[in-house]
């Protein structure tokens, strides 16, 4: 029996190939995600181990406002007073200690645009004269000395085209200045950059002035003398440190850095695995359909086996073994392709400026096990029902002409309704705040339920969809063919349905989010113009010059900083009182805005209510310098996209080592020509290439851009599942063409032209695809609306259904059908008429 099965796989290898392709793609994504994560993890482990190689102990401030990283920003730590350096140097066993000062510095390129990439940071730091403790070494020129010299890393030198001897504008928190590039540096191992970041290096005095406003060093790092372990040295250094500082060993440091990367990579890996799961889910439909069709076509053969004495069990096992073989091959190929996928994604990251360290390809045993388990599991699971059906073939079928009677769809309708309701229930439960994974499971079950219902739906829907296409005999025959086997049509369409449903749901959600952001932003934006830096901070000099523009009535410079509120880490906006109700529109719910000032803070009503804080209550606020102040709650306001949760007065700025701003809002004087004011502002900013001026509508558009980009990326990933569904249509059509060889021969014999045959197949494909598209659009739109509804409480208050985009998806499904019909139609048109007519 096993040999017969293997023969049968070989005999049908072409037919199985297409369906296996779906599994191959899914497995390659699973493998790719794991390989990429593992390889990057090793890359970063090596990287952090090498760059921290000579650091025995690092001295740094304790986290000031909670030690959890918040929204991707590392927890802020208090600075290390400059006096600590000398104290550490004197500790017995310290061979050498150097200060490390770091912050943001953006280099402006020759084209006047900041060399700031999307992903990686723009770092400004100091270059010390210590080959041992410097992370970088000079590869050209010399180290910067004095206030006008810098060195840059080779990655930045390459991307900007600058070299030793050139001068370049650099924007730092205290302002921008033109510097002479005197050196180019590289990391150990001759790396030009670690992960696409840019590096601008000053001498230590300049770095302290520019980056920490002379308030101290970011860290002090020390190398150990011979025979002193990292732990010993740490234990000797800790006692000499003032309160608020800690000493950690180089090994601990490397592990810490590595862990933070691991977290980020883990999130990314989950993201990829979700898409792999979608691809495999779609693939399962195709496998199911292929096996069902193949078994229908082999009814006689199976009946013969049964007549010859094979038991039901043997027949089932034969089909399952066949599926296992297909799954095995598909998993092996998918695993191989996974390496390619990992490289592809890495390339994609490089393209957006986030270069990842190169550490070869790491294929863990876990990856191999996962690939095979997933590939074989999905294939066998999908083939299980067809296998059971195969076992039910009666031995008598060998004698009869294999005409399968139209089985009633009644049971499917009942089952489908029940499953759809369960799915809907799960969705509702998940959306009412029980977690994303329940929402995902709900969506999955709903898809299954609708897939079960779809054969019953297919007759009326396909009839309606096919009508406009059924001009002429080819169209009519094509439409008739697509209605011929509702189960087959439905299973084929269901694969496409899933992809289309997901992209439609995302689009509805994206459009709603965008509409919400646009509305909310528009409502709170009281200013006519907004100035923000692309990575760069806005220095006080620039703000001063903006204030002097005639017609700029209110100029509000503000920034966001990390603070702790009653012990909880958070972010606060530090804004002048004049901004409130002017450049920032707001609705006060309690208290008086006039009360706001030194010693006071504002809070959003939602946060205040959540913490049961009434106006007038004292609130303890912790700052980046480790100090605390008790501020009184002056007023609360309605949710405000510009203000966030907390607003503090500028009087606290002494605690926050800041000399620069994140954004400046400008309101034109009443009666002035806004266009003229804009031109004047733009003239001022011409000298600050790192800063952008946006008017209201540009600002609103900018806010929604990120959401649009995210939706675009996710849709691109989901295109994979649509592609797999197209393969499914190709597969079904190819098998149908094979099944209808005699019919096609007859049509050709009685004079149907090849062109007409092709059109007939195309219409069938397009009708099936449009059916999938319509189901997908219906489910997807429903899902999108449901999710928006569920998120209304979390701020997505607007519902927006992007009609144009949904229509495009509908047309796209038709196009997918056309594409899928290409090869099967060619094959049908090329049939040898004589052979086809004579075939059994």
């Amino acid at each position, binding site marked *: 029996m096993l040999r017969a099965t293997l023969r049968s796989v070989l005999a049908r290898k072409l037919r199985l190939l297409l369906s296996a392709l779906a599994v191959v793609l899914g497995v390659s994504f699973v493998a790719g995600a794991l390989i990429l994560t593992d390889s990057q993890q090793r890359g970063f482990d090596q990287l952090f181990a090498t760059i921290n190689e000579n650091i025995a102990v690092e001295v740094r401030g304790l986290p000031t406002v909670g030690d959890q990283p918040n929204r991707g920003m590392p927890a802020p730590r208090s600075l290390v007073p400059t006096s600590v350096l000398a104290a550490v140097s004197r500790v017995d066993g310290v061979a050498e200690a150097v200060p490390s000062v770091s912050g943001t510095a953006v280099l402006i390129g020759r084209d006047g645009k900041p060399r700031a990439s999307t992903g990686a940071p723009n770092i400004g730091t100091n270059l010390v004269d210590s080959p041992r403790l410097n992370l970088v070494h000079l590869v050209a020129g010399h180290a910067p000395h004095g206030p006008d010299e810098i060195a840059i890393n080779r990655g930045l030198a390459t991307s900007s085209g600058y070299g030793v001897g050139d001068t370049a504008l650099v924007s730092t928190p205290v302002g921008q200045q033109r510097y002479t590039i005197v050196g180019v540096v590289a990391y150990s191992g001759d790396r030009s950059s670690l992960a696409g970041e840019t590096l601008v290096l000053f001498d230590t005095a300049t770095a302290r002035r520019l980056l920490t406003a002379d308030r101290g060093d970011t860290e002090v790092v020390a190398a150990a003398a011979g025979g002193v372990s990292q732990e010993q040295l740490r234990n000797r250094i800790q006692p000499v440190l003032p309160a608020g500082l800690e000493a950690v060993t180089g090994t601990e440091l490397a592990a810490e850095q590595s862990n933070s990367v691991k977290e980020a990579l883990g999130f990314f890996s989950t993201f990829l695995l979700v898409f792999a799961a979608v691809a495999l889910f779609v693939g399962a439909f195709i496998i199911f359909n292929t096996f069902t069709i193949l078994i229908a076509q082999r009814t006689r053969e199976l009946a013969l086996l049964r007549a010859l004495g094979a038991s039901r069990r043997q027949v089932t096992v034969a089909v399952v073994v066949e599926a296992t073989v297909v799954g095995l091959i598909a998993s092996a190929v998918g695993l191989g392709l996974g390496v390619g996928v990992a490289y592809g994604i890495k390339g994609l990251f490089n393209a957006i400026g986030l270069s990842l360290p190169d550490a070869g390809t790491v294929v863990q045993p876990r990856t191999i096990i996962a690939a095979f388990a997933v590939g074989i599991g999905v294939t066998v699971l999908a083939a299980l029902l067809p296998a059971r059906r195969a076992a039910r073939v009666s031995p008598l079928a060998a004698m009869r002409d294999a005409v399968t009677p139209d089985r009633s769809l009644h049971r499917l309708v009942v089952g489908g309704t029940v499953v759809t309701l369960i799915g809907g229930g799960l969705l509702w439960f998940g959306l009412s705040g029980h977690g994303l994974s329940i929402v995902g499971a709900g969506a999955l079950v709903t898809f299954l339920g609708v897939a079960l219902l779809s054969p019953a739906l297919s007759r009326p829907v396909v009839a309606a969809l096919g009508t406009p296409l059924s001009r002429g005999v080819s169209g009519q*025959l094509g439409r*008739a063919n697509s209605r011929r086997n509702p189960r087959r049509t439905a299973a084929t369409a269901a694969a496409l349905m899933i992809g289309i449903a997901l992209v439609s749901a995302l689009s509805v959600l994206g459009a709603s989010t965008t509409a919400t952001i646009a509305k909310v932003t528009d409502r709170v934006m009281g200013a006519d113009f907004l100035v923000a830096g692309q990575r760069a901070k806005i220095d006080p000099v620039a703000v001063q010059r903006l204030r002097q523009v005639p017609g700029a009535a209110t100029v509000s410079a503000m920034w966001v900083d990390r603070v702790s509120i009653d012990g909880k880490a958070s972010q606060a906006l530090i804004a002048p009182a004049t901004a409130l109700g002017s450049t920032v529109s707001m609705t006060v719910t309690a208290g008086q805005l006039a009360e706001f000032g030194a010693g006071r803070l504002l809070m959003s009503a939602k946060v205040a209510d959540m913490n049961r804080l009434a106006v007038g209550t004292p609130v303890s606020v912790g700052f980046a310098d480790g100090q605390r102040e008790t501020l009184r709650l002056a007023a609360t306001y309605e949710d405000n996209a510009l203000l966030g949760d907390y607003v503090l007065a500028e009087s606290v700025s002494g605690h926050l080592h800041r000399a620069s701003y994140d954004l400046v809002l400008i309101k034109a004087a009443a009666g002035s020509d806004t266009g003229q004011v804009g031109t004047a502002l733009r003239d001022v900013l011409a000298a600050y290439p790192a800063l952008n001026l946006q008017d209201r509508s540009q600002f609103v558009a900018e806010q929604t851009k990120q959401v649009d980009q995210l939706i675009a990326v996710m849709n691109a990933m989901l295109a994979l599942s649509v592609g797999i569904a197209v393969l499914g249509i190709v597969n079904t059509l190819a098998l149908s063409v094979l099944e209808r060889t005699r019919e096609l021969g007859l049509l050709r014999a009685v004079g149907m032209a090849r062109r007409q045959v092709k059109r007939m197949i195309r219409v069938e494909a397009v009708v099936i695809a449009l059916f999938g598209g319509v189901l997908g659009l219906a489910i997807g739109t429903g899902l999108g609306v449901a999710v928006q509804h569920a998120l209304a409480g979390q701020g997505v208050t607007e519902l927006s259904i992007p009609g144009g985009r949904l229509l495009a998806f509908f047309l796209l499904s038709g196009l997918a059908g056309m594409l899928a019909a290409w090869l099967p139609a060619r094959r049908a048109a090329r049939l040898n008429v004589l052979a086809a007519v004579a075939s059994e």
Partner: protein
Amino acid sequence: MTSTRVERGDPSAARAVSVSKTYGSGHTEVRALDEVSVELAAGEYTAIMGPSGSGKSTLMHCLAGLDSVTSGAVYIGGDQLTGMSDRQLTTLRRDRVGFVFQQFNLLPTLSAEENIVLPLRIAGRPVDRAWFDQVIGAVGLADRLRHRPTELSGGQQQRVACARALITRPAVVFADEPTGNLDSRSSAEVLGFLRRSVDELGQSVVMVTHEPTAAAYADRVLFLADGRVVHEMTEPSAERVLDHMKSLDAPRPES
């Protein structure tokens, strides 16, 4: 089509001139037809008979433009088929030739009526209602037109196929073992209809068969053996045909 078309009433409906058909080459060469020349008169019912492997089906396929010939020429009416492109052959089959196959070969998605008018629909030609009614009357299917093939008996299906073959008023109808899958009563219905289509509708019919009773319906019987026409019989009866077939079968020097 550019070639001259001979008017109806031309004595030949289809013609083969020195047609040979070989498969394979060298010592594996099989000669299915060997310099066959036949003329099938218009308005006549011709049966082609012969033992298996005699080349009778090949001859019919070549005459109908379904298969190509190795040498020689084939004509339908006045049009020479040999040398035609696939597109020209398709049009010719559509407009000038009718087919009846052993497997009834109806489209399961279409009703009986839709199956009958299918060749006209493919050609994009209107249905001549008078002719349609005449054909339907002759096959006796007037009350079955809305049925699907699966709802019809084998004999009924084959009669639908016959009506489909006639609906375009073809120059010639080719029937390939039309009764091969039918019981004797249904066979008689189908053969009777083909007979009437010649007598009453003025059609030309060429039928390949191995049943002497079926051949007895024809005006003329051609006997093939080893790719050659070996005998011709007019006004055949089942007994005479059977006798001749026995003589063909009996002494066979080689396979």
